[in-house]
């Protein structure tokens, strides 16, 4: 059966749609009736007949890596639950999509909620969880209603609740709304928030969620996209799924392109099969208004910015080869080798009309606003970075301010409980590293602080 899409929303031929198959599809709606028409919940039936261990092994074979940002293998994460565990196990779906530049989960939860719920039931069965929560960000009020309705529908069809489809497996899924805090995207912060506290992340070790998570019980936290992939792994089988993409970077992933391109949007592609050239020129239609691309943030605003005219050394030792920016494939490992990260797949593009100091200022404002305030280096550092970048952007900075900014950023790295300390300092470090000349160019020696006496003195000396 051929699938038709809404006007102007047709997927690009380079795309390989699994998760986004039903997004913007003509005649599609988020009801269970529509989902069941196309073998919906069939994979759940298949998974319930399997032993949980086999489901985990299937996911391990598939090589699925978490799509939330860190890229940690999902199957291995599931295996971390202590074997002698006696406490209840919890599954949490992280739908606190707040990384600037990322907007993939929005379409899944608004348009295809049953895909997520099916993935969650299969995953809960695999890890032995009987209670699952969807932590959805506050800014998706409509999606929270859609999901609760979908959960109700699934219950009516006996896909949720007690004794699911006669298999003896029980599961309840609840929707928990956050309240607009970026830090809730961090898994231990999310758990604290779910417990009804301020979302101060916990320190790891010992608080690895898989061992000590929600209510001090083993907890698996997975991104929306990762959980949806589980459905497709069950359908294709781990061996078949691993053939998608490139070795160690299997499957498909959704790239969200925003900023200065002709056609911004979301593209589901096989991991590592698409280079920046194909993505930005072929799929997004190139730069706007005949401008030139200047820089790209490849994985949400916390990843390090890349300059478009850079050349990178990829590989180690004798295998090392020079690679132009445009030839870099968007997979986890190559982007890491290029000094950035694939993160959550949010590609933000800037053209030559953008002042880097302005971009930097916008990013530092974001992190200063969103730092949770638990660790001093991040809490104070992010505010300092904001103030210094305010000066650079406003043209009142001295050349040494750029060095000060860099120093502050490096003092945050590795000195905080969670990775969000780095998330705030990496963009600043990279921005200074790549665009130091431009930033210094916006500063002036004249802005050096002078005391009243000094000004009087200079006035006097120059008048003589």
């Amino acid at each position, binding site marked *: 059966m051929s699938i038709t899409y809404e006007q102007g929303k047709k997927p690009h031929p380079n795309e390989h749609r699994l998760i986004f198959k039903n997004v913007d599809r003509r005649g599609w709606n988020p009801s269970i009736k529509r989902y069941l028409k196309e073998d919906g919940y069939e994979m759940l039936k298949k998974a319930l007949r399997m032993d949980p261990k086999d489901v985990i092994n299937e996911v391990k074979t598939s090589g699925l890596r978490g799509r939330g940002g860190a890229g940690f293998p999902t199957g291995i994460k599931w295996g971390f639950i202590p074997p002698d565990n006696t406490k209840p196990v919890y599954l949490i779906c992280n739908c606190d999509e707040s990384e600037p530049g990322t907007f993939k989960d929005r379409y899944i939860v608004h348009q295809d909620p049953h895909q997520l719920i099916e993935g969650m039931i299969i995953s809960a069965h695999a890890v032995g969880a009987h209670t699952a929560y969807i932590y959805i960000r506050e*800014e998706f009020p409509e999606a929270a209603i859609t999901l609760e309705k979908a959960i109700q529908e699934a219950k009516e069809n006996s896909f949720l609740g007690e004794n699911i489809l006669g298999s003896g497996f029980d599961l309840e899924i609840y929707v*928990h709304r956050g309240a607009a805090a970026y830090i809730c995207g961090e898994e231990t912060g999310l758990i604290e928030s779910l417990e009804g506290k301020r979302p101060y992340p916990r320190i790891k070790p010992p608080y690895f969620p898989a061992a000590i998570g929600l209510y001090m019980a083993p907890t698996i936290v997975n991104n929306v996209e990762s959980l949806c992939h589980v459905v497709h792994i069950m359908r294709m089988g781990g061996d078949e799924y691993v053939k998608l993409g490139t070795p160690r970077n299997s499957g498909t992933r959704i790239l969200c392109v925003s900023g200065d391109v002709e056609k911004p949007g979301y593209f589901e592609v096989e991991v590592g099969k698409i280079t920046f050239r194909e993505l930005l020129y072929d799929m997004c239609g190139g730069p706007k208004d005949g401008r030139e691309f200047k820089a790209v943030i490849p994985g949400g605003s916390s990843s390090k910015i890349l300059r478009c005219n850079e050349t990178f050394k990829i590989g180690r030792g004798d295998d090392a080869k020079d690679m132009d920016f445009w030839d870099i494939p968007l997979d986890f490992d190559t982007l890491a080798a290029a000094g950035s990260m694939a993160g959550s797949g949010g590609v933000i593009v800037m053209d030559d009309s953008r002042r880097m100091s302005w971009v930097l200022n916008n990013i530092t404002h974001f992190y200063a606003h969103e730092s949770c305030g638990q660790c001093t280096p991040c809490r104070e550092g992010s505010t300092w970075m904001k103030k210094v970048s305010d000066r650079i952007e406003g043209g009142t900075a001295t050349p040494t301010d750029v060095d000060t900014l860099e120093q502050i950023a490096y003092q945050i790295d590795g000195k905080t409980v969670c990775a969000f300390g780095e998330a705030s300092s990496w963009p600043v470090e990279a921005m200074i590293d790549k665009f130091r000349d431009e930033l210094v160019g916006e500063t002036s020696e004249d802005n050096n602080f002078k005391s009243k006496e000094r000004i009087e003195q200079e006035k006097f000396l120059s008048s003589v």
Partner: protein
Amino acid sequence: MRPLIVFQPILFFKVSSYPEVPEIPADQNADDSEQPAPPADGINTPLPRPVDRTAVEYLPPTLSVLEQNIHSAKTPGEKFFPSFAVTEGLEEKANERIAQYPEDQKRSAVLPLLHEVQHRFGYISPESIDWVADKLDIEPMKVVEVVTFYPGFRQKAPGKLHIRVCRTLSCAMGGSYELMDKLCEIARIDRNASDPHKDPIAVSPCGNYSVEFAECLASCGTAPVCLVNDDFHEGVTCDKAKELLNSYQNA
């Protein structure tokens, strides 16, 4: 003359049993030639002290830190929201939410309950903090710490239409700052009147509109975007601002 505030022993249990918060005039533009102009944003500016300093040697601060943190400043938007009252519907919904969490972990329901309150009454008032704490058998302070942390909870009434404009990178590149300026111009809102860090919500004098900058609303591909109450709007460039507000005229 402003009444002199008499020192009262502080009770550590109930939040709303603190001394009455002095009334702050709602209408800032009232013609008041005899008295000095009232403070611009109520609680952050200390109220003028009584002239006779011999009467009380050391005056207690006008509002304690805790009082400042739970205080709901008066705004013109208040008239559109009912004042906090425990209704049957609220009670029922709250019990439903509490049942979603394990019995010994009722505290988890703090966020859902606060959402229920904010949805019905527009903002989180000191009384509602007490009610949530009572409902969950936890100290009011544990609710206060949540309310004051999350940007998603408001402590003063917004306008009838609360507009949240995304200000993060992609939307800023798409022109969300221009959109905000345009919205402020149409709704006659002065965003510079208060410190955006302490008080991000600016309400129009008529109370119909309020604006706030939000961080990333996760729709960067269709920038600039904004949320009007619970409705999401994408691709709202500044020339569409008027149209956006007009579409709510009949609401």
